[in-house]
């Protein structure tokens, strides 16, 4: 009975996924929803907006600067977490032996 429920649930999920995959636009088509006016705006106005010829840098550092700040925060959090786990609190020179033993 448990297996039957599981197979039904997984089969339904598979059906939903396949049917939604069938509705996706063909890959690389010019009319895809991802090629909208935002990309055109970036490519046309990037030089005028920021005086910088590198459109990728303009997008990640200017239009999406808040996202890059989030990436920097992720780096900061990761290094803080690693240092907390690996280094921790510095033991005093006298106590070191007892802690390691």
């Amino acid at each position, binding site marked *: 009975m448990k297996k039957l429920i599981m197979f039904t649930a997984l089969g339904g999920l598979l059906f939903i996924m396949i049917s939604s995959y069938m509705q996706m636009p063909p890959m690389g088509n010019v009319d895809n929803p991802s090629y909208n006016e935002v990309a055109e705006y970036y490519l046309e106005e990037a030089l005028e907006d920021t005086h*910088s010829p590198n459109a990728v840098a303009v997008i990640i550092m200017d239009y999406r600067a808040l996202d890059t700040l989030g990436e*920097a925060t992720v780096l*900061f959090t990761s290094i803080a977490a690693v240092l907390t786990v690996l280094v921790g609190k510095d033991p005093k020179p006298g106590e070191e032996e007892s802690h390691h033993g």
Partner: protein
Amino acid sequence: MDDLIVRNISRMIIPFIQLYGIFVVFHGHLSPGGGFPGGAILGASIILYTLAFGSEKGHLKLPHSIAKWLESGAVIWYIILGLFGIFAGHVFLTNKPAGFYMGQAGDIISGGFIPMVTLAIGIKVASTMITLFHTMIEEEEH
């Protein structure tokens, strides 16, 4: 690794790696690259130094006491640059309307806050890589 050949080749090649890393960071708004790859190249040069000359000499190149200031400072510098936009009457992280120096397109000093942000990201990525590597090396030696 105490090897004469590795040490001498590293000593010759590290300045060029660092020069290339600084080039990639400072040309982040002009050419492919930017803060993340440039910082990774800079960090890799110090990691190569640590591998060739040992952990103690490598640790002197970037002690934890400096690295923590670099990392916190880079994020704070980024946020301060963003706050300029608010003080100028626009949204957070505004570039051109906030009154940054825009310059001529194609120059090193141009593009508003993009070079400054790229520099902060480069310093941060390099410092993070070096600190992570040194911490793990020290952990193994204990």
